Structures are given as C-alpha cells and as structure tokens.
C-alpha cells in the first residue's frame, strides 16, 4: 500500500534562511508526488508536482523539490524563507493519474519562521 512519511513534525527557521522539508514515500511503481501548503484560514494549495521527466521540479512561491528514486524521497526546498511561508506543508502521493486524483497525504510539517 502507498504511504507517505514526513519525519519532521515541526521546523523553525529564521527569515532568510534556507529550508528543506523531508518526505519519504512507499509505492511499488513510479509515484506521482505532490507538495501542498495549508495556511491558517485557507484551504490546501498545490505548491508543485512530479509526474515524470526532470527530477527537479519548480513550484510556486519559489519552492522546488527533487525526486530521488534511490532514496524514495521527494524533499521540498527553498533557498530563502519569508515570514509568509509559515504554514503547514503536506507531501502526498497519487496512485495513478487517469480520471482520478486520489491522493494519500503525509501527516504534515509545521513551519515556523522567526524574524
């Protein structure tokens, strides 16, 4: 069965510092991988996704993620964090993309940004 592990429950960084949020997945075939962000009072929003091809994908708000098959990882990165990035981040894996977008989410990583 598919699963997603986000080992860091809570991360604190200073504004301007670099950021890496970890995500490991378990899936037998090539997964479809996603990062969503959930800000207070807002719905989940897609940051970026990986289906195939280039293993380094760019997303919105200056985020990027790298798919590493050998490590079963899809870590999210940002070179310089802004205070507005404080939110909860969820990694997700999809079984197939056809007529369904059923996703399995990790438990999330809460990001706190200090000025």
């Amino acid at each position, binding site marked *: 069965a598919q699963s997603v592990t986000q080992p860091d429950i809570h991360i604190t960084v200073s504004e301007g510092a670099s950021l890496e949020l970890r995500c490991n997945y378990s899936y037998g075939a090539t997964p479809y991988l996603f990062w969503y962000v959930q800000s207070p009072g807002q*719905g989940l929003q897609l940051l970026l996704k990986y289906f195939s091809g280039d293993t380094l994908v760019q997303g919105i708000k200056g985020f990027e993620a790298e798919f590493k098959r050998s490590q079963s990882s899809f870590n999210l990165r940002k070179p310089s964090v802004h205070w507005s990035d404080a939110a909860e981040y969820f990694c997700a894996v999809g079984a197939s993309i056809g007529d*369904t977008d059923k996703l399995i989410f990790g438990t999330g990583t809460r990001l706190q940004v200090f000025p």
Partner: protein
Amino acid sequence: GAGVSQTPSNKVTEKGKYVELRCDPISGHTALYWYRQSLGQGPEFLIYFQGTGAADDSGLPNDRFFAVRPEGSVSTLKIQRTERGDSAVYLCASSTGGTGELFFGEGSRLTVL
C-alpha cells in the same frame, strides 16, 4: 464564487445526532473529493465522485457515512448517529481530473460533544 465553498464552516452537535456538510465545487470541475483531517494528521481520503456517481468510496469509515452528488455539482456528506470520534475538519476538493491538482475548500469543522 471562484473557489470551492463549504458550509457550515463550523458545526457543533451532540453525540447521536445527524449532520450534513455541503460542498459547492468550482464550476466545471467534474471530479469531487471528500477528505477528513483530524488534529495533527494529514487529510485522509473518504470518497471520490466523477460526475454524479461515487467512483471510489473506499475511505468511508463505516455505514454511518454517506455522500451524494445528485446533479454532478454540489455534494453533501451525511453522517448519521455521530460519535465523538467523528470530530474533525471535513475537507472538500474538486478538480478537472488527471492533473493531480485538487482545489480545496476551507473545510467544515465538526465537533461532536
């Protein structure tokens, strides 16, 4: 509106009562999803509609939970004989299908006393 709309935003009920949660998806989105998010957890899949039919209801925890989408647009999640363990935020999402991008509403927070 432009986004996914969910009502009510908050619902407090007593154990054993019946609850309905409504979702109005983005116009033109044929796919609609219900997820449940408990405190400290990620969203957990409940059910998926393609048009009017439930294409996958494998995530519904038991027969107290039921969802409908009679005209292929608005959906209602129905919970009978609510239990304290049903307390969570119920998220609705819609999509055009096949892109992996779900558009989520802000959720309906259900509290069962």
